[in-house]
């Protein structure tokens, strides 16, 4: 659409600008403030320069939680994106099945995050939980509060349970926008199922899939509540992802300087990855 140049449009944007700035800029300035100074309370601050940043960048604790965070995010992206596409492809296209699938599949998205954690905790308890009990009955030695591998397995399974539906809904919407004529043409040409998928369906889903990957990256990178309730970051620090580690440092130990420096580095990483995605997405849109 060709847009008119109109500087008065700023008046329409002012309410949004004020509300978001109120919430984003002032608190962010507090974080910046702490990141460069040392405080002993009573509003006494001493300039520290980049000391906290150096400390965080060199600390093994940060490297470890960053590593865990990337590992977790990549694992869930590798599971959720293909799984979501597969489910969307097999979903009914019309009839009574559509609303049933949509409503049931959206359920996990609307459960408060700590309830998701609590629910999976109850579900996975080795003695009285369905998952834990069944796995132990099948001969696996399963205990997610004691064993690192089990804790990771449970956390990943929980995230797959929680968020795959978002990928399904997005892919499904992308598939719905394909005109039947495309499929008819493919049938006349005798295209295989695989060719239909790679040549018609995947290109049409490209835009929604970019959004799905972007959203899943952002949200899994910021994950806090669910693993905190499920495992509390344990056993040990095995599932202490970035946010969990950060809250531990800021509110638990009250190391405000290092925590603020870590916040800024953390935010910067998310921003950088999203900016790359966003630019690529916009470039694709421009080409079409």
């Amino acid at each position, binding site marked *: 659409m060709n*847009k008119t140049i109109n500087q008065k449009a700023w008046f329409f944007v002012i309410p949004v600008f004020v509300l978001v700035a109120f919430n984003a800029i002032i608190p962010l300035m507090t974080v910046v403030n702490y990141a460069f100074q040392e405080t002993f309370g009573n509003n006494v601050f001493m300039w520290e320069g980049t000391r906290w940043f150096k400390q965080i960048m060199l600390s093994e604790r940060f490297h470890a939680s960053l590593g865990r965070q990337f590992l977790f995010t990549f694992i869930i992206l590798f599971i959720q994106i293909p799984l979501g596409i597969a489910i969307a492809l097999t979903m009914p296209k019309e009839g009574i099945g559509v609303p049933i699938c949509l409503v049931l599949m959206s359920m996990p*998205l609307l459960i408060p995050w700590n309830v998701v954690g609590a*629910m999976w905790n109850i579900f996975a308890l080795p003695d009285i939980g369905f998952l834990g009990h069944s796995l132990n009955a099948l001969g696996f030695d399963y205990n997610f509060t004691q064993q690192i591998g089990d804790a990771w397995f449970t956390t990943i399974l929980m995230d797959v349970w929680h968020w795959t539906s978002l990928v399904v809904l997005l892919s499904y919407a992308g598939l719905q926008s394909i005109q039947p004529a495309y499929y008819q043409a493919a049938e006349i040409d005798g295209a295989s199922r695989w060719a239909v998928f790679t040549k018609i369906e995947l290109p049409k889903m490209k835009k929604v899939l970019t*959004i799905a990957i972007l959203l899943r990256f952002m949200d899994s990178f910021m994950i*806090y509540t669910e693993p905190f309730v499920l495992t509390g970051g344990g056993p040990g620090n095995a599932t202490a992802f970035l946010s969990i580690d950060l809250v531990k440092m800021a509110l638990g130990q009250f190391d405000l300087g290092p925590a603020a420096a870590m*916040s800024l580095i953390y935010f910067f990483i998310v*921003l950088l990855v999203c900016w790359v995605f966003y630019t690529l997405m916009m470039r694709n849109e421009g080409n079409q």
Partner: protein
Amino acid sequence: MKKAKWVVPTIYIIFLMLPIYWLLNMSFKTTTEIINTYTLWPQEFTLENYKTIFTDSTWYTGYLNSIYYVVMNTVISVAAALPAAYAFSRYKFLGDKHLFFWLLTNRMAPPAVFALPFFQFYSSVNLFDTHVAVALSHCLFNIPLAVWILEGFMSAVPKELDETAYVDGYSFWRFFFKIFIPTITAGIGITMFFCFMFSWVELLLAKTLTAVAAKPIAATMTRTASTSGYELGLLAAAGSLTIIPGAIVIYFVRNYIAKGFALGRV
């Protein structure tokens, strides 16, 4: 082949429903049954857990608090986002692209980063432990999202609609409320759904910004899990009840969901 297609979604839905079933199952059991035995369905069916929640004010006020700030946040977000999304979809102005990206960056900010500064900031303006504080803080991620979705819907409306209305002598505001808003009701519905959803499920900020008076139900649950022993049945009942508002909202917007996603937003 046609019939086999049902298998994958069915298995997936069963996988989704199992933990929910287990939560419901636990909520209808007595504490002794939970601790002593492993049963696939309640042997002594009891509503005791639900009764406690509906009669104890620390429990049910949690629900009321949550609903109160979620509704407040949804209204503020959509009301502020409507004119802004219109501006982004219709006009070019100084810094529009940068502003749009800046808004989106706030959707990317990890809430954990903001928890402590929010606590200090809202305490200093005397809003700590009020519903307004939580509703305003959730604007941080809901307003960018609302602008993003609404802009998509508004861009799909041809500009000729605006021009025809002006030719017919409509003033801007009369056009906006009488013609434009009714044509994008589906979009507004979807936006409200997502604002409701993200405000309802968020806990970190809601918990940080409240103590007693505006404490959300989700935070009440974490307290019970940690302090008063292991009351799993009560916890399960409270958890089950938090699913209901979401389920109601999904039911009402089910026809819009696919359509909203189809525009490639969210």
